[in-house]
C-alpha cells in the first residue's frame, strides 16, 4: 500500500503540498505516483521566479515507462526547484515526501480545491480497483 502522510494536502493529479511555517508551500509527487511511474531517470524542475497558474504543467518527470507533466497545484510564484534532482532523480522514488520534493512555491491566489489525506487515499483505492 502506498504511503499517504496525514498532515499533507493532495491533488487529483497526484501532487502533494506541505505548507511551511513562513506560508510558502513545498510540492512533490506522491508515493502512489512514483510507484506507478517506475524508476525515474530525469526530472526537470521549474525555474525560480516563474509564475504559474493552477493546473499549469510546471515540471517534467521521465521514468523508464513514460515522460509525464507535473501540474502546479496552486497559482503561485516559484521560489526554487529542488536542485538535487538533476543528478539524483531516483531520490523521488526513494523519498517522495522528503528529499524528493520538486519545488517550493509562494501561493499568489486563493487555495484551490485540494484533497485531504483520507480523500486522496480513497481516490487511489478507486484507481487501483
Amino acid at each position, binding site marked *: 500500500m502506498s504511503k499517504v502522510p496525514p498532515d499533507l494536502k493532495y491533488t487529483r493529479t497526484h501532487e502533494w503540498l506541505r505548507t511551511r511555517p513562513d506560508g510558502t508551500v513545498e510540492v512533490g509527487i506522491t508515493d502512489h505516483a512514483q510507484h506507478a511511474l*517506475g524508476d525515474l*531517470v530525469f526530472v526537470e524542475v521549474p525555474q525560480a521566479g516563474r509564475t504559474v497558474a493552477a493546473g499549469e504543467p510546471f515540471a517534467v518527470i521521465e521514468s*523508464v*515507462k513514460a*515522460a509525464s507533466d507535473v501540474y502546479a497545484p496552486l497559482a503561485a510564484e516559484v521560489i526554487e526547484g529542488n536542485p538535487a534532482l538533476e543528478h539524483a532523480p531516483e531520490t523521488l522514488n526513494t523519498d517522495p515526501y522528503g528529499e524528493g520534493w520538486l519545488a517550493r512555491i509562494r501561493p499568489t491566489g486563493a487555495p484551490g480545491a485540494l484533497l485531504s489525506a483520507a480523500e486522496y487515499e480513497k481516490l487511489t483505492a478507486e484507481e487501483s480497483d
Partner: protein
Amino acid sequence: MSAARDTRLEKLIFEYSVSGRGANDQWPALPGAEASADLPAALRRAAPPLLPEVSELEAVRHFTRLSQLNFSIDTHFYPLGSCTMKYNPKACNQYAMLPEFLARHPLAPESLGQGVLECLFELQQMLCEVTGMQAVALSPMAGAQGEYAGVAMMRAYHRSRGDLARTEIIVPEAAHGTNPATATLCGCTVREVPVDAAGDVDIEALKAVVGPKTAGIMLTNPSTLGVFERRIEEVARIVHAAGGLLYYDGANLNAILGKVRPGDMGFDVIHVNLHKTFSTPHGGGGPGAGPVGVAARLAPFLPVPVVARRDGRYVWLAERDLPHSIGRLSAFAGNVGVLLRAYVYMRMLGRAGMAQVGEYATLNANYLLARLTRAGFEAAYPHRRASHEFILTLRRQARELGVTAMDFAKRLLDHGLHAPTTYFPLLVPECLLIEPTETESKATLDAFAQAMADILLEAAQEPEQVTSAPHTMPVRRLDDVRAAKQLDLAWKPSP
C-alpha cells in the same frame, strides 16, 4: 549487466579488429597532404580515425550473425499496439527497386521522369480518396515531420486571416506524445482535455477549453484507447464553431481504411504514417514518409513540391506555383523510394482490398480480445468493441500476485512472441496495448492467446518464473535506468 555474456551475443566488430588486416590493395589511392592543405591546421586530423580492420569474411559473418539476432515481423508475431507492425508484402519492395526508379537522378528533368511522377500523382490521388481530403503533399519524411507540416499549415491558415490570437492546440489526455510535442515545436501552447470513463472525449471539458485562442484540436480516431470516438461529429462542430481546425493523426488509420474517412468526420488536416498503414519499412529512424492531406481551404499552404497534371503531362509545383506554401521539408521530393512502396501496396489492394484491411484488422483484434477475456484477462474498456487494437489491464495481477504488465511482456519473449506495447497510454494502469493486424492467421492469434493464458497460470503458481523472465533470450532483463542515463556507448580500445 555483470553476468557473463551469452555466447549467442555477437561481439562488436571492433573487437574482431586486428591492426593492418584488410584488403589493402583494394583501397582507393589516398590523397596526399596537399588535398587538405587549405583546411586550417586546427581542423585537420592528426591521427587516422579508429576503424575496424577485419577480413571480408569476418565482416560478412559478423553482420549475418547480427541479422539473426533480430526479432522482427518477418520472424515473429509482433502485436505492438499503436504502431501497426503489419507485414509488408515483398512485392512492394521488389517494384520500388526497379532500376528505372532506383537510378533516376532527382535533378533529372520532368520530361525524363513522367513514369515516377505519374506514380506519385496517383499516390496523392489515392491518399485523397482514402482520407476524404482535397489535396495531399508527399514530401514530409516521417510521421513527426508530417505532424509538423500539419500544425504549421493550421497556423499559416489562421495567420493568413489575420487571426493571430489562435495559438492553443487541444489534445485529449490519451493522445500520442508526439501531438503535444508538435504543437509546442510549432510555437503553440497545449490544452489537455480528459476522456470519460467509456474512452470518449469529455464534451463538457472540450466546450470549456475552446475559444478565440483555439488553433485546433489533434485527435486520433480510433483513439489510442483502441475505441472509435463516437461523438466525433459533435467534437468537430464544437471546435469549428469556436473557429478552430481539426487535425487527424493518422496513426490508427489502419482500423478504418475504406470504411470511414477523416474528411467526412470533419477533419481539416491529416498526416498519414505510410509505415503503419501502407506497407513501408517501419522503425529504425527512417527513411520514412508522412504525407499530409488537407481540406480545400488549407490547400494553398501545403509543403512543396507537389505533383500536378497539366495538359496531359506531370509537373512539379514549387514555390512559384504555391506562394503561400509553408515551404520545403526535404531535399528534392522527400523519400521517393518509400512513397513508391506505398504506391505499389495501394495499387495491389485496390478499392475493395482497402476495405478488407480495416475489416480484418478489426476482426482479428476483437477475436483476440474475446479469447483473452475468456482466459481471465481484464479489458480496460470492457463495454466497447475494439477497433484494430485493445487494452488489457493487469492491475489485478500486479496487486494480487506481484506480477506486472512488464513481467508478462518479458515472459512472452520466451514463447517466441514480441511483447505488445507496455504502459501506454499511461492513464490505464499496468496496461498492454495489443494490435494483431490484419495479416495474422487465426492459428497465430490462438497461439498468442494460449501463451498469455499459460503465463497467467504461471503467474499464480510460480510467479518468480515470470518476474525474472526472459530466460531464453541472449540478454536477460535489461537495466532500463542505466540504459536511459548512460548514453556514452562509444567503444574504446582497452589500454
